[in-house]
């Protein structure tokens, strides 16, 4: 009997602690979301809330209508996310399929080349110097091409393709298919869980990209929303803040501008998150995570 009540107490405490953790992960967003829809008066009056006080859309109107900085950056973010994800998927799966066959010409050399990059790289400055030697500074190619394929994701793709039964490929070969057709018609359709997982992971990676833009892109017209948010954040460098100040009757406090841009920069992630969650545990398991 004693053990039973002990166990009830344990369950309540355990579940309570987990609830607190879940809330700690969630509340910062809820506050920023609520604050971005609240009036400046309410913000001055209340310290913390998760339901908008004095609901208003004025802050968003201001952020989006007073200049087109945010719109431009959103276009960059969306286009680069879609383009970058497609490039990642194409280059990685095309390269992984041949490498899932150990008898392909050059297999050993190429696998060695790939695994070395897991543990050694040229580093930031040499990569920067080379990219600038290629004349790629200030071009979107500097963001898209160097990250088109990486050793760790490639290895996950390779081990997934290896798990596809080779009988299917042999049958197609007898029917006269070449390797590329087999890849396109047989291997890819069997790889939807892998492709779904990595579509989402690649997309999140591109949407969140910040540092490579700071390093390679000076032209403010080519900045995505993450870079704009960072510039709003650092008070000394608030060029967007300044340009937002002009010619508007309503000027929300700098904090509120930040809340709106945080929401804009986060909402797409939260929208794809349910899909992401469905696939990522499966996707991680694909990477031969040992239980």
């Amino acid at each position: 009997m004693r053990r039973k009540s002990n166990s009830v107490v344990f369950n309540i405490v355990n579940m309570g602690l987990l609830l607190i953790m879940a809330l700690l992960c969630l509340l910062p967003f809820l506050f920023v979301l609520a604050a971005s829809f609240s009036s400046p008066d309410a913000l001055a009056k209340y310290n913390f809330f998760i339901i908008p006080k004095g609901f208003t859309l004025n802050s968003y109107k201001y952020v989006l209508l007073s200049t087109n900085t945010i719109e431009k950056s959103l276009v960059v973010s969306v286009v680069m996310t879609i383009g970058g994800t497609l490039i990642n998927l194409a280059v990685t799966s095309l390269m992984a399929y041949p490498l899932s066959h150990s008898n392909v010409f050059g297999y050993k050399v190429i696998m060695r080349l790939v695994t070395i990059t897991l543990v050694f790289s040229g580093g930031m400055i040499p990569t920067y110097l080379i990219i600038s030697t290629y004349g790629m500074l200030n071009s979107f190619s500097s963001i898209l091409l160097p990250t088109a394929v990486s050793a760790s994701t490639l290895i996950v793709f390779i081990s997934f393709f290896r798990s596809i039964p080779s009988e299917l490929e042999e049958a197609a070969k007898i029917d006269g298919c070449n390797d590329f057709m087999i890849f396109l018609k047989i291997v890819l359709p069997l790889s939807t869980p892998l492709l779904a997982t990595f579509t989402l992971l690649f997309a999140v990676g591109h949407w969140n990209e910040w540092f490579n833009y700071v390093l390679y892109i000076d032209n403010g017209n080519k900045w995505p929303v993450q870079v704009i948010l960072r510039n709003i954040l650092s008070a000394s460098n608030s060029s967007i803040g300044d340009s937002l100040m002009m010619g508007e009757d309503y000027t929300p406090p700098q904090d509120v501008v930040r809340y709106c841009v945080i929401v804009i920069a986060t909402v797409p992630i939260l929208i794809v998150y349910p899909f992401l969650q469905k696939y990522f545990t499966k996707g991680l398991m694909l990477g031969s995570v040992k239980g």
Partner: protein
Amino acid sequence: MNSSVTSVSPSPPADTSAVTVSKPSAWKRIKRDKWMLGMLLPGLLIFILFKYVPMFGLVAAFQNYKSYLGFFHSRWVGWENFQTFFNDPSFFQLLRNTVIFGVYKMIFVFPLPIIVALMLNEVQVNWYKRLTQTFIYIPHFISWVVVASLTVTFFASDNGVVNNIMGTHINFLANPSTFRPEIILQQIWKETGWGTIIYLAALTGIDPQLYEAAEIDGAGRWKKLWHVTLPGIRGTIAILFILGMGSFLNMGFEQFLLMLNPLTRNVGDIYDTYVYEEGINNGLLSYSTAVGLFKSVASFILVVISNQVVKALGEEGIY
């Protein structure tokens, strides 16, 4: 992409062509594999152009590199850049900061996913467990820029939520004594939930019969935890610990760059942020390349050692 703790490494390929017929000539194999090689080409070019050519760019560390002279005409200076770095006071400062952050990480960040995974494992109500997981994974997918913005929102001295609630104006963000806890807390907030996944996977691998047997022997919750659950995930813990030790030079660089300011440089500068500051902002290209090369070599050695240790334990390493 953020490659967290997934130890990815394909199982050795089943060598089907092993004993069979003698190998055809290289030319015949190229002809046979022409489609395969064509598919390989784009990725191979990326690896060569953007991963291997930059390794060649490391020669700048031994030069007085000038961009108008390029790699072929810049003056060679031997080990001068390295000597400058080793004699610079910032060498020890960077080493100290890196080691301190590494130790903090191992003590405060590393154990949390294990504890949370064990807590989740004890929850018998399935929907509650899934809901909790849904929420605690979210921060992993948020960009560091947004995390930095949320940190400012809550901890700014002026109009930050925490200071407003307490009615104070404590300077959390530009303060050398709170910088390290702040970095560690951000890492805990962002990655604890995500880190549980690998342990939860390990936990599902424990044979349920072991629990049944322990119950028959009269073991309660804590006895089962100690004698069945923990031994069941001990291997995973050991591997992640060793791999974590091996990669402590490669700490999330974006995070540091976003949070650092002139007041916290002393306690928060790590190799990568120093390289960025000296190389890109101050234009000391050769010097910062040398610093970066030093870090790459040191981290290479650490990763290889830790990987050997993992393999010696009979597990699969990262390569």
